[in-house]
C-alpha cells in the first residue's frame, strides 16, 4: 500500500527519492540539537547560558565566580565615558564632587577601597548585579539607585542626590561600567565584606582599645578623629560628628568587624585574628556618632 503510494509519487514529477533521505537526516538533526542541553546538563551541572566557560568552571569549584573589573584607563570617551568618569570622581572625592549631599567628612572610597574595585571591600560591581533586591533594612524591594541613596543617608550622614541628578546618574554609570561582563543576579566572589565566624569570646571594647592603639592610631588618631591636611581628611574619622551615623551598615559591629578583618590596616588585610577584629569593632562602635536619621 505505502510502497504503491511511494511508487505513484516517484512517478510524478513533484517527487525525488533523495527527499526521503533529506527529511530523515533533518529529523535526526533537530532531535540532536534539542537533546544537547540535556546531555550537557547531565554531564556538567548546568551553568546558566550567560556565563562564560571560565566562570562556569569557577562556579563549580568556588560556587561564587571570580570577576575582575576593568582598569580606569579603559573608560571610553564620549558622553557615557564622561558620566563614568564623573561617577569615579564622586566616588574618590565625594567631599568635592558631591559636597552638598554629604553631612560628614567621609568619601565613598573610605569603605569601598580601590575606587570601589577591591574584592572583599564591598565593590560596586558586586552590588550592581544584585539589584533590584528586597532589603530587610526598609522592608521593600530596592533599586540600585535606592541602595546608593541609603549610603548617602546613613554612611555619608547626608541627603541623597535625586534619582535624575547628574551625580546619581554618574554613580550608577560608574557602577554599571565596573560590572561590565559580570552575570546579573549572581553572588560574585568578593561581594560585600566576607562574614566572620561568630566571635569565640563576646566582643569586648576594652580588649578592642588595645587592638586599636596597636594597629589603628597611626592613621586614625588616638581619639579616632582621623587625620586632616589643609582641612581635608586624608585618613577618615571613625566616630564623632564627621563619621558615619548610627544607621549606617558600618555601625553594626559584625559589618565593621568583617570590613576591618579583610582590609585593615591598609595593606595588611587578613592579618588581624578574628577575635581582634570583633573586639576593635566593638570598641569603635561604642563611641558617639551622629544619630540614626530614622529615629529623629
Amino acid at each position, binding site marked *: 500500500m505505502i510502497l504503491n503510494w511511494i511508487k505513484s509519487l516517484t512517478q510524478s514529477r513533484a517527487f525525488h527519492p533523495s527527499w526521503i533521505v533529506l527529511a530523515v537526516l533533518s529529523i535526526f538533526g533537530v532531535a540532536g540539537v534539542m537533546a544537547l542541553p540535556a546531555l550537557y546538563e547531565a554531564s556538567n551541572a548546568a551553568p546558566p547560558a550567560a556565563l562564560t566557560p571560565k566562570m562556569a568552571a569557577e562556579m563549580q569549584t568556588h560556587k561564587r565566580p571570580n570577576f575582575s573589573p576593568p582598569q580606569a584607563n579603559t573608560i571610553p570617551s564620549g558622553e557615557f565615558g564622561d558620566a563614568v568618569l564623573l561617577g569615579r*570622581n564622586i566616588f574618590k572625592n565625594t567631599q568635592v564632587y558631591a559636597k552638598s549631599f554629604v553631612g560628614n567628612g567621609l568619601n565613598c572610597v573610605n569603605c569601598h577601597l580601590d575606587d570601589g574595585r577591591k574584592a572583599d571591600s564591598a565593590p560596586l560591581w558586586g552590588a550592581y548585579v544584585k539589584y533590584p533586591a528586597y532589603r530587610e533594612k526598609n522592608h521593600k524591594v530596592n533599586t540600585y539607585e535606592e541602595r546608593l541613596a541609603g549610603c548617602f543617608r546613613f554612611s555619608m550622614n547626608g541627603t541623597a542626590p535625586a534619582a535624575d541628578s547628574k551625580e546619581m546618574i554618574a554613580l550608577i554609570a560608574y557602577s554599571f561600567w565596573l560590572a561590565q561582563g559580570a552575570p546579573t543576579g549572581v553572588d560574585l566572589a568578593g561581594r560585600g565584606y566576607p562574614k566572620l565566624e561568630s566571635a569565640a569570646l563576646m566582643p569586648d571594647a576594652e580588649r578592642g582599645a588595645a587592638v586599636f592603639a596597636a594597629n589603628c592610631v597611626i592613621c586614625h588618631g588616638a581619639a579616632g578623629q582621623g587625620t586632616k591636611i589643609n582641612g581635608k581628611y586624608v585618613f577618615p574619622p571613625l566616630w564623632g560628628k564627621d563619621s558615619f551615623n548610627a544607621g549606617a551598615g558600618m555601625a553594626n559591629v559584625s559589618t565593621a568587624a568583617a570590613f576591618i578583618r579583610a582590609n585593615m*590596616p591598609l595593606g595588611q588585610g587578613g592579618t588581624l585574628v578574628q577575635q581582634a577584629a570583633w573586639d576593635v569593632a566593638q570598641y569603635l562602635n561604642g563611641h558617639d556618632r551622629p544619630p540614626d536619621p530614622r529615629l529623629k
Partner: protein
Amino acid sequence: MLQNTRRLFGAALLLGAAMPSLAYADAQAGEALAKHGAKAVPPCMQCHGANGEGQASTGFPRLAGQNKDYLVKQLQNFKGRRSNPIMQTFAQALSAKQISDVAAYYASLPGRPAGKQVWLTTPTTPVAPPSRGQLLAQQGDWDKGIPACFACHGEKGAGIAPSFPALAGQNATYTNKQLTDWRSGARTNDPQGLMKDVAQKLSPDEIAAVSAYLQNLP
C-alpha cells in the same frame, strides 16, 4: 585666688607667645649643625646637599621639607635599630636636643613645590595608560594586595606627618634601596611592619618603576 589665676593665665599667654620663637631657635641651632657640624659629627650638608636636596648619584636622601617627627625617629633609630654604617656613627654622637634641632631645620626648608591639587571640574578621558610606577603610586595593585603609595604618604607623595614621610622628589637610588631593604628585612624600623608588608609584594622591577616615578614627581 583670682590674682593667682590671673598670673597663671598671664604666664600661659607668655609661654604661648614664646612657642613659635622657641621652635625658630631650634631650627637655627639645627642650621648651624647642618652647615658646620658638631663634635664628632661632620656637617650634614656635605652629603645631603647645600639645601638638603640630597645626592641622586650616591643615593643620599633629600631631607628638605621632610616632616620633623619622621626625621627625629630616623636619627634615633640610627643609634641602633636602623642600620647604616655612616649614619650610625653620627647619630650616636648626637644628643636628643641636637637631633630635634637638626630635624626642625630640615623640616623648615622648602620641600618640593607642594604641587597644588587640581581637581577635574569637567571630566576628561585619560589620554595614555599610566606607567607601572604611576599606577603603583596612585592606585596600588589590589590584585596583589598592594595599596597605593599615596594612600598613606599623601596626595602626590607629599607625606602625612608624623609617621608617613614625603616621597615626592626623593632620589630613586635612595627609595629603591629602602624598598629593597624592607623587602629583604635589612631595614626594619617601619611602624607596624607596614612597609615590609608592601615591599614584599613588590617585584624588583616594580620597586625600580615606582622609585623612578616618585623621583620625577613635580
